[in-house]
């Protein structure tokens, strides 16, 4: 029987009721009496020298409260980068200033030059048109390789070049890798682009700054995945506001996918301007504005070499990647192509020698940072594409070549610095083959052929490191923050619980899944547990939600805090039952003493804690509230196998995904319904990357795909119904729940399966196409098959 409550049950989401009835409270739904509105005047050129920003006419326009420019921020800090990378020579990366409003130069289309605050939004926008800009356009730095040539125009004049860093991983591996490739039986080489994407959560970003002069306290309401991180970065590095005078609230947030991790200039501006103007200041991004201000994702150009012996055993991997940073360093930008990418280059395979080189490059484009998967999709894509190509070149079955090289013994230390704790890659492979009906392919291909369509199939595996992460490790690697998570569990006198968590739900369903864990631990109804998140004023310092970390890290913190609660409650119960605490058992919300008929209910113990009339006050404090900070010992390592079947229309190049199967190992699962939903969403984003999405600039730095008219978002008829399975479970060995994280898997694992399938379809029909760069639009596929 499926479970109907607690861990493992598909409990329906309680948060759905407010979302389904229009009662959600998103940031743009908040309006504060007397609020003003800001419109940002943004650069329409990619690169230019600011000669003058004439604001006098705008300042006197109707309704205008004030016009701000870069000058107003000269004494204010810049937007910080949260991760310092050390290059191959041991030197720190080049780190440019990132002012809240542009100073001296504009560096990408959308770079904010001035901010007009007015009584209404339209007044602010009207006035912005009266600002006289004098900008000398400069040559745009767009191509990463050209940007590194001598004499190339520089994005930042005060840096030595457009190179942020040249990173080698692991530098000590390099010689052995070179040697292994030189002496290998076969080397497969692939050059590819992992294209720039835009995260596009459906809720555009919003920021409202508010200042209370009576308490000298600033409040920022913002669309964030991690309000405490914003408070720390903005308070400490930008505005110089101590954290006890700064509150950051992220209420219901309409999706994030990474793009709402980062601290953005608009947040700092609204907080700053509210204090200056003594009135709330609100900014609501339009979608068009989002395309040129939300951090973008991916944008790698890679050459990968895979060396094999005569039997197809992997001998070595060597990669060279150019990673686009955009015009400034966004919060976690520098970590994505390095520690979230290089560490995953072993994949699911026991390749003995691996060396990864990454050159991070500045360009006149929107900053690039983490987007669902962040570095791991880039690693998985190149690895699984080159394996597919190698299998074809060597005449080995694509399933066979993978199985032959799987890591099968755990723990396994890779040559790229991580240690996989557990996994069973053959099991997920077997399951994927089963749910995909791998053996039924030929019959389906024949049916497709009757319709004049070419059927192909693609398979790949993936592994990811998530549940980010051990603070000590990331600290060694350059992170300027810890990556623990926190929870305070407050038991009320009448037995209900409130969990104040540093994790933040923006679609993941924490309000439902977290109570399932506590209900299981105590044996009470889930409805007795309430989750509070998203407000620095009433949650302990936490690092937020990204990197598939909420349950693995935040959930673990909650478990630890709840364990403390139970331990204390047992002491109280022992007192009430006149027994020894170590003899007390807790089951189904009842404390009892084994072998006796003594028992006391959960609610009675809670009441005793707050009404301590009969209570061991000399040994125990009253009350029942505990906080835990959990810092994991390792990443978690979800893994799986994905299979895609496509039909290609040879007349038009259009690809239709007919079947998609995903078999994942997420370790233990708390709410299978939510887990499957997370996989579905990831698959759509991965399929979107593979077939539809691409952020395009022209050579002058103009954003071509600046709206949904040109940036192809996956729609309902672009994707199939998916076959997903998570029954292969090797629990994580180092967190108390044995969970691994499921948020990013779909987006990491799916792009190579789709591209492998399309290449397979063309190969089966006599087209010697070995690779097509994403997105595999009809136009590109047609060009490839006719090239």
């Amino acid at each position: 029987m499926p479970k109907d409550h607690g861990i493992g049950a598909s409990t329906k989401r309680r948060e759905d009721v407010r979302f389904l009835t229009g009662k959600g409270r998103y940031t743009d739904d908040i309006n504060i009496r007397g609020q003003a509105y800001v419109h940002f005047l943004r650069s329409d050129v990619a690169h230019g020298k600011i000669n003058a920003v004439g604001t006098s006419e705008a300042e006197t326009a109707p309704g205008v409260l004030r016009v701000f420019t870069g000058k107003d921020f000269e004494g204010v800090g810049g937007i910080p980068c949260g991760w310092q990378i050390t290059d191959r020579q041991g030197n720190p990366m080049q780190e440019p200033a990132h002012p809240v409003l542009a100073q001296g130069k504009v560096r990408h289309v959308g770079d904010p030059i001035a901010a007009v605050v007015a009584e209404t939004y339209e007044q602010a926008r009207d006035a912005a048109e009266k600002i006289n800009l004098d900008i000398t356009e400069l040559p745009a730095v767009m191509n990463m390789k050209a940007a590194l040539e001598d004499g190339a125009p520089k994005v930042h004049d005060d840096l030595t070049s457009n190179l942020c860093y040249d990173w080698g991983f692991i530098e000590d591996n390099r010689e052995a890798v070179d040697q292994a490739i030189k002496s290998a039986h076969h080397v497969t080489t692939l050059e590819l682009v992992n294209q720039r994407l835009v995260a596009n959560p459906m809720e555009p970003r919003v920021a409202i700054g508010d200042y209370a002069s009576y308490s000298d306290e600033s409040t920022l309401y913002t669309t964030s995945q991690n309000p405490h991180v914003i408070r720390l970065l903005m308070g400490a590095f930008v505005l110089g506001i101590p954290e006890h005078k700064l509150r950051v609230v992220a209420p219901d947030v309409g999706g994030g996918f990474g793009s709402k991790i980062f601290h953005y200039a608009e947040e700092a501006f609204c907080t700053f301007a509210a204090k200056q103007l003594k009135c709330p200041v609100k900014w609501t991004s339009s979608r068009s504005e989002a395309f040129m201000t939300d951090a973008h994702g991916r944008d790698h150009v890679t050459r990968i070499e895979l060396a094999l012996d005569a039997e197809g055993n992997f001998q070595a991997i060597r990669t060279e990647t150019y990673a686009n940073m955009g015009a400034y360093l966004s919060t976690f930008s520098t970590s994505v192509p390095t520690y979230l990418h290089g560490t995953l280059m072993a994949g699911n395979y026991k390749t003995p020698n691996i060396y990864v080189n990454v050159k991070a490059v500045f360009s006149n484009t929107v900053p690039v940072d983490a987007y669902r998967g962040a570095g791991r999709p880039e690693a998985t894509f190149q690895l699984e594409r080159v394996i597919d190509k190698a299998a074809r070149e060597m005449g080995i079955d694509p399933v066979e070549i993978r199985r032959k090289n799987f890591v099968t013994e755990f723990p396994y230390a890779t040559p790229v610095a991580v240690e996989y704790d557990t996994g069973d890659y053959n099991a997920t492979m077997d399951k994927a083959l089963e749910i995909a009906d791998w053996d039924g392919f030929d019959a389906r291909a024949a049916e497709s052929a009757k319709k004049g369509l070419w059927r192909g199939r693609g398979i790949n595996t993936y592994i990811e490191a998530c549940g980010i992460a051990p603070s000590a490790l990331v600290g060694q690697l350059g992170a300027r923050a810890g990556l623990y998570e926190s929870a305070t569990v407050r038991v009320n006198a009448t037995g209900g619980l409130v969990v104040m968590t540093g994790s933040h739900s923006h679609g993941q369903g924490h309000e439902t899944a977290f109570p399932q864990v506590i209900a299981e631990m105590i044996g009470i109804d889930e409805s007795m547990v309430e989750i509070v998140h998203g407000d620095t004023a009433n949650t302990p310092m936490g690092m937020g939600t990204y990197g598939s970390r909420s349950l693995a890290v935040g959930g673990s913190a909650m478990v630890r805090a709840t364990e403390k609660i139970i331990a204390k409650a047992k002491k109280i119960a022992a007192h009430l039952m006149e027994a020894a605490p170590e003899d007390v058992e807790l089951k189904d919300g009842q404390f009892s003493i084994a072998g006796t008929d003594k028992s006391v209910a959960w609610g009675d113990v809670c009441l005793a804690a707050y009404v301590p009339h009969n209570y061991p006050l000399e040994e125990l404090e009253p009350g029942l509230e505990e906080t835990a900070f959990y810092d994991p010992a390792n990443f978690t390592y979800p893994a799986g196998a994905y299979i895609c079947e496509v039909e290609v229309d040879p007349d038009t190049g259009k690809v239709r995904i007919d079947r998609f199967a995903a078999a994942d190992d997420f370790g233990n699962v708390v709410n299978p319904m939510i887990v499957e939903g997370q996989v579905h969403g990831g698959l759509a984003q991965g399929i979107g990357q593979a077939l539809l999405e691409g952020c395009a600039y022209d050579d002058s730095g103009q954003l071509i795909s600046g709206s949904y008219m040109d940036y192809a978002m996956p729609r309902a008829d672009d994707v199939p119904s998916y076959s997903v399975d998570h029954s292969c479970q090797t629990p994580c060995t180092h967190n108390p729940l044995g969970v691994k994280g499921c948020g990013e898997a779909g987006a990491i694992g799916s792009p190579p399966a789709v591209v492998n399938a399309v290449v397979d379809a063309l190969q089966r029909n006599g087209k010697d196409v070995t690779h097509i760069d994403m997105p595999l639009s009809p136009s590109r596929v047609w060009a490839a098959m006719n090239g």
Partner: protein
Amino acid sequence: MPTVSMTVNGKPVSGEAEGRTLLVQFLRETLGLTGTHVGCDTSQCGACVVHVDGEAVKSCTMFAAEADGAEVKTIEGMANADGSLSVIQQAFQDHHGLQCGFCTPGMVMSAAALLKDNPKPSEAEIRDYLEGNICRCTGYHNIVKAILAASGQEVTPIAAE
């Protein structure tokens, strides 16, 4: 400023609106009905879908004054009279047809319009009909399932251990 009057979720309302005031602004800002959302500015995402005189429209691409005298229905008016979730809303919850909830009001309004015209749509018809509603969270799988279920058709049960 001209005054605009309409019936919203069965209740007569009126308020001032400039010529350029969009219906969605009137609903959200003048009436405080913030369940209707704005997710794009090119009339594509569908987070703003409401019903005007019984037909689904994008309230971000219609002026408030154009709805003068009209019957408007928003997500706030979709629950049953006793406040319980309607069949479509309940199906979205039962089948996990939403995650962040931002596109959800538009999805529910579009689903209701579809089922009015086509009470037993096929999976393909549902996917085709949702062309103007973008969801970034669910991958559409469970939205399609929820609409099939709301139309009384058999669907596979949700995941369970």
